[in-house]
């Protein structure tokens, strides 16, 4: 089983593919499409389309489709040609173009498989290859359209007189991602979908040349492993070379409430030994830009006379060329690339008649909260031709409480507790689980495949043989039971465990065994965010939004409604005013306009009536802006003060 899916390459020469069809057109009677076609002709005859273009009409569409397929099986037509007859609209579509997803099937003829025992024997002996089978018409590729004309049996046993094809392997009904999951036939369908989408988020060895790449953001797992229970397609897709997970010893039991609601308890010592360990690679870049007027940025260590100089400290890792040393250990907002830019506006000419060049600081620095070491530095050229510096930062990401893990059965969870190995339950052989999964995760989700994988993993580890979890054809529970029995283990996979703290035997047997777990790229260290004070927006003076800007969490309309409903006026005031955009504005008692304070005269003045009867008023800055906006539409709002009116 080498090729399972095949998408015709876009570069495939069109001529070659279309030619045989034209030949076929000569053999059968296709009348050329003329403009004089009568309505009657259209009704009776089948329209024939080649690659979407109407070529002509044919009296017997279904027969034409059948004969064309026959020719393809006899290798008179290219095997890439697909024919579809739509009996509802009475049209035949012949497709030879690129971009169709096609899948191989074994051809059935008159209720009998073309893959006869003789053919099979010749394949076994090596006399026939896959290509031979395709040329012989034993195997044919169907596209999505032709599939509609066929009845496909799942296995050879199911073949009836109506069937036209059967699956090469029953497991090929799954797509690329789901084919890698073990025992999907034992899981509920939604969990398979979830497992597929989570497998895409797993950390592993995403590219073998990751060391030479400068990806904006990438994760690499330190010690990825291949699963003990894998599938056929896992090997076919060469996943062995880019594994994304590790085999965890999983015990299923509750643990003191630390694994409630999809939490998991993880062995701290296992993590210290490298379990789930990964690193994050993040690339920063800085370009030496050109400005109109011939000015340009300069990558250098800024001198103290540069506008916006940050002090000596942040520049301490810079080499004399202004670029940071590789392997510098970064902890805060250190500068990675020192850079100065020309001033934004032209400076005034100084007394001596020379333009004083005041440079502006525009260094690239580490984002707040980021830490790590400089992994690599690259100096190159941007598409614009400017000098470009790329800095790759490497941050180890050791699993911690809150990090997300998932098995290949849609069973995801976060670490709720890192437990010392000595406090963890252990078996009589001294096996300590890496992860404790809550039993409540199983029944309602119906992921029996997870349990079967545990059993398979255990049999694999004890028997020293990798197991196969391919859908419909993998190892069965009986295979595993046999191995476990041989090794003197409980055939159900259950074992007596002892409490690591008290040393007492746990009263029930626990289900324990290795399961392939993936670490997903939702790491707390990249998400955690708190704020007690911090930056505000320039326009509204309200707190900024988002983790990247050290922002606050929005106290929205519905939250506000809840406090109103509760009658907690003072809390609302605190959230919406005191902890947000409170200001004190001067208001004229006479005309209701905002006043200002003249700092030189040290006097409060109303700009409208020039009076000095002014009160300081506490209000939200947003309100002050609102009044300004209203004024801008030629409406004059006046603030009338109760005790002054």
């Amino acid at each position: 089983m080498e090729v399972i899916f095949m998408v015709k390459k876009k570069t495939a020469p069109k001529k070659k593919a279309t030619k045989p069809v034209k030949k076929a057109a000569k053999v059968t009677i296709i009348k050329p499409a003329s403009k004089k076609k009568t309505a009657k002709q259209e009704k009776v005859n089948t329209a024939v389309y080649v690659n979407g273009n109407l070529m002509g009409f044919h009296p017997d569409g279904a027969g034409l489709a059948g004969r064309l397929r026959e020719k393809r099986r006899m290798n008179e037509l290219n095997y890439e040609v697909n024919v579809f007859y739509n009996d509802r609209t009475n049209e035949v579509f012949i497709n030879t173009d690129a971009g169709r997803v096609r899948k191989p099937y074994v051809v059935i003829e008159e209720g009998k498989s073309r893959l006869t025992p003789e053919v099979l024997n010749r394949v076994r002996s090596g006399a026939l290859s896959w290509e031979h089978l395709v040329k012989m018409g034993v195997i044919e590729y169907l596209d999505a359209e032709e599939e509609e004309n066929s009845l496909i049996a799942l296995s050879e046993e199911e073949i009836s007189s109506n069937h036209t094809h059967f699956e090469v392997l029953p497991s090929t009904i799954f797509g690329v991602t789901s084919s890698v999951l073990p025992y999907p036939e034992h899981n509920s369908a939604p969990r398979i979908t979830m497992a597929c989408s989570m497998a895409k988020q797993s950390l592993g060895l995403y590219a073998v040349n990751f060391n030479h790449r400068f990806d904006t953001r990438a994760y690499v797992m330190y010690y990825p492993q291949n699963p003990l229970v894998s599938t056929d397609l896992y090997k076919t897709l060469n996943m062995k070379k880019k594994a994304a997970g590790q085999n965890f010893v999983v015990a299923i039991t509750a643990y003191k409430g630390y694994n409630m609601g999809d939490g998991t308890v993880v062995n701290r010592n296992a993590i210290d030994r490298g379990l789930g360990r990964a690193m994050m690679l993040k690339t920063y870049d800085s370009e030496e830009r050109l400005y109109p007027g011939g000015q340009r940025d300069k990558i250098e260590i800024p001198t103290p006379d540069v506008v916006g100089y940050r002090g000596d400290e942040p520049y301490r890792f810079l080499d004399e060329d202004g670029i940071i040393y590789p392997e510098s250990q970064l902890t805060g907002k250190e500068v990675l690339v020192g850079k100065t830019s020309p001033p934004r506006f032209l400076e005034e000419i100084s007394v001596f008649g020379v333009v004083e060049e005041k440079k502006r600081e525009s260094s690239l620095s580490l984002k707040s909260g980021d830490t790590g070491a400089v992994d690599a530095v690259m100096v190159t050229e941007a598409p614009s031709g400017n000098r470009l510096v790329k800095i790759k930062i490497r941050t180890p990401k050791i699993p911690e409480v809150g990090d997300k893990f998932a098995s290949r059965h849609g069973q995801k969870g976060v670490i709720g507790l890192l437990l010392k190995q000595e406090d963890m339950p252990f078996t009589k052989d001294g096996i300590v689980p890496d992860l404790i999964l809550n039993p409540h995760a199983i029944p309602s989700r119906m992921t029996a495949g997870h349990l079967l994988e545990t059993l398979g993993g255990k049999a694999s580890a004890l028997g020293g043989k990798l197991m196969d979890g391919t859908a419909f054809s993998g190892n069965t529970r009986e295979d595993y039971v046999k191995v476990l029995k041989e090794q003197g283990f409980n055939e159900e996979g259950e074992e007596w465990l002892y409490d690591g703290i008290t040393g007492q035997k746990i009263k029930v047997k626990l289900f324990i065994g290795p399961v392939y777990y993936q670490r997903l790229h939702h790491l707390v260290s990249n998400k955690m965010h708190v704020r007690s004070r911090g930056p505000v927006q320039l326009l509204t003076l309200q707190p900024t939004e988002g983790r990247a800007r050290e922002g606050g969490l929005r106290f929205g309309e519905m939250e506000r409604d809840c406090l109103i409903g509760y009658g907690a006026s003072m809390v609302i005031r605190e959230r919406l005013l005191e902890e947000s955009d409170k200001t004190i504005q001067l208001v004229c008692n006479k005309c209701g306009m905002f006043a200002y304070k003249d700092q030189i005269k040290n006097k409060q003045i109303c700009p409208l009536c020039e009076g000095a009867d002014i009160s300081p008023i506490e209000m939200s800055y947003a309100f002050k802006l609102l009044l300004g906006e209203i004024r801008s539409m030629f409406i004059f709002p006046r603030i009338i003060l109760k005790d002054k009116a």
Partner: protein
Amino acid sequence: MAKASTKIIPYSAVGIVAAQSLGEPGTQMTMRTFHYAGVAEHVPTGLPRLIELVDAKKEPKKSIVEVHLAKEHKTKESQAKALAKEMESVLLPEVAIVSENMAEKRIILKLKTEDAKLLGVTMEMLKEAVKKTVGANKVEQRGDKISVRLKDDKEKEKPLKDLRKLTTKIKKTLVKGISGINRSVVIKDKGEYFIRASGFNIKDIMKLKNVDPFRIYTNSVMEIEKTFGIEAARNATIREMQSVMDLQGISVDIRHIMLLADAMTSDGKVKSIGRHGLSGEKAGVMGRAAFEETIKHLVNASIIGEDDNLVGVTENIIVGQTIPIGTGRIKLGMKTKK
């Protein structure tokens, strides 16, 4: 004690609480609608119906009316069926073929004998109905046909196009039944027969014989308001809302619904919730501007020089003051010696 604990605390934000209590279950309402038997199958229930009630629509999407029989007849199915038939309105084109005679400026009506028989319409009834709409002296019977003249002898000549006008008028003639009632169905419930019909016309139904005039009900709140007044409309609103909630299996404290109905009916006419009703009549300019049509409210306020005395919750939040609700409403006063 129990009574005291049900009392609402002074300065509670009952409106917000009612809105939340009705709104939250509203999000859980299924789109699945339940069906009535027979007539008025697509009466909106669930969220669409709730919206309809709150918007104070002139007429529900599908209105129905329920008519109960007078005490002595309520167990008689035949009586109920007869009444149901009596109520159903029959328009002229259903029982007669209308044709125009341009030359003589006449309209000829020919009874559809079979249809008429089925609907219980006689030639006499048809004649009477036509007489009512066009005037007695224009109508005459000619064998199995009824002829309507465009003008009677006293009137002067009319143009031909008036003939078509008259035809359309005749086609709208109610031959039998109660206007507005379309289809009716007899339903048995708890040993009692009653009629459920689509449409509404309480006034005319009350006049019918054998009808219990105290037990006529319609889902059209506006019709109830028209016939029985605002208090009845309030009760109808409450009842309709409650029935929607019950049907969905959602329990909401009736006081929330009552508050809503009170707010909608408090000034003597049924108001909607929204910019054309309750929210559009708020006291403060800023409160209204914060809701919908901001610019319209601001501009209008500036034209008439409106004051906002900051009495509402929204206004005070905008300005940045303590809101006059709950703890924000309580003020401490101190008497000082003069």
